[in-house]
């Protein structure tokens, strides 16, 4: 079995993962997070420019993962969700409870947190997560 090498994918998208930089289409105005190479509506006619997102939004759906993939073996159980950002797009992410029960509609904001530790290399991966406001 090949080992996952997630780190390359982390660094490639570091502006989005660390600073919530997505983009928007100048042709039609639609905002995207995570960023897209082309706009889904405009295709080849799209003109994408970077856009920083506030990280504020509300929980659209969520679940607690109890059977995790290899990389998250030591983190389970954890809550993941689909968050509708105030700027429009929906995005997946971890949701921290911080003592609040998570529901559909719970208002959240983004936070920069530890995601998991790569057992083999001992590397700590950081990522945006969401937490109740």
């Amino acid at each position, binding site marked *: 079995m090949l080992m996952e090498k997630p780190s390359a994918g982390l660094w490639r998208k570091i502006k989005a993962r660390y600073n919530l930089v997505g983009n928007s289409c100048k042709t039609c105005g639609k905002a995207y997070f995570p960023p897209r190479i082309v706009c889904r509506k405009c295709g080849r006619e799209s003109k994408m420019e970077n856009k920083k997102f506030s990280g504020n939004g509300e929980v659209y759906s969520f*679940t607690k993962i109890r*059977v995790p993939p290899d990389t998250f073996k030591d983190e389970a159980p954890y809550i993941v969700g689909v968050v509708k950002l105030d700027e429009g797009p929906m995005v997946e992410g971890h949701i921290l409870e911080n003592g609040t029960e998570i529901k559909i509609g719970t208002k959240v904001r983004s936070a920069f947190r530890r995601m998991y530790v790569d057992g083999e290399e001992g590397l700590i991966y950081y990522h945006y997560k969401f937490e109740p406001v």
Partner: protein
Amino acid sequence: MRDVAIIGVGLSKFGERWDSGIKELMAEAGLMALEDANISSNEIEMIFGGTMASGRFMGQEHVAALMSDQLGLNNIPAVRIENACASGGSALRLGYMAVSSGIHDIVVVGGVEKMTDVTASEATTALGGAGDQEWELFQGITFPGLYAMMAKRHMHEYGTTEEMLASVAVKNHANAMKNKFAQFHKNLTIEEVMKSKVVSDPLKLLDCSPISDGAAAIVLAPLDRARKFNDTPIKILASTQASDTLRLAERDSLSGIKATTIAADKAYRQAKVTPKDIDIAEVHDCFTIAEIMAMEDLGFYKKGKAGKAILDGETALGSKLSVNTSGGLKGCGHPVGATGVKQAVEVVWQLRGDAGERQVKGANIGLTHNVGGSGATSVVHIYKRAD
């Protein structure tokens, strides 16, 4: 465009097949299909092989050429099709296109997956590749997790209950009892499903299709040559497919699969039938919520109405529309690359009247529905006995 018929079908026993590797599974299903079609190996012109992650599960790629090799088909062109859990259905559609177009006459479509040689967590990782790796799997979001979030939305929007979800598993396990090829021969109760261990709330262990080994195969021929091989050829009335974003959160809705709606609309038009004309359907119940959404997206029920209908037994074996007579992915098993082909095998048996104990009387028109990932691919086929 020529009419295309299925002239032979074969299936391996599904389940945890520690006795068999990928070669044995393919041979088991493939030889049965050739025998069923009463055709010799040298009449086959091309093979399309569906498999999702044989490299991840077995370290084996190049699976279609291997199928041809193992079935003794010698030197014919072979192509592997990977479309996540819809690999089998996609392979069937390509086989159909090859025969329909007139490029080939006799074509074999195979599907296989050998999943049980790895741990549950390795399998979860391999299957996670069916979603958007960078934003879903990378963040530890699994397939049960994605369907759990769809289930939560469906419950929120339509009042669907965990009991309704559980009733899908109960029905499909009951059907699997009558299928000797099925992975599970165990009746379930709603309580047992509701009390099984939570995998990703609201989905529990018994809401999930299992990790399985298995293979399925089909022989296709032009309809006008089909009777030479088989007294009861099954005509493919429609073969359609649609795609959507890989990433679940980017879709228009989480409580339905748009690619299914699109593929189904096209299929009904192509076949010149309506959902009311369908007698039997094999739908993609990788999780119980998926069958509820499928019944709505395929036009059998209005959005939000399928859960109660299934709980009330409206789609049980022998009802007006019998769904997942094979036991579905839940009861029969879900070797991902084989599933789409296996669904067609079951429909062929039903339409021929060969389904034994689980035969639906008077089954005339059948439908199969095969989904890849959390809905980025959906393939629909409609079939009828060629009288």
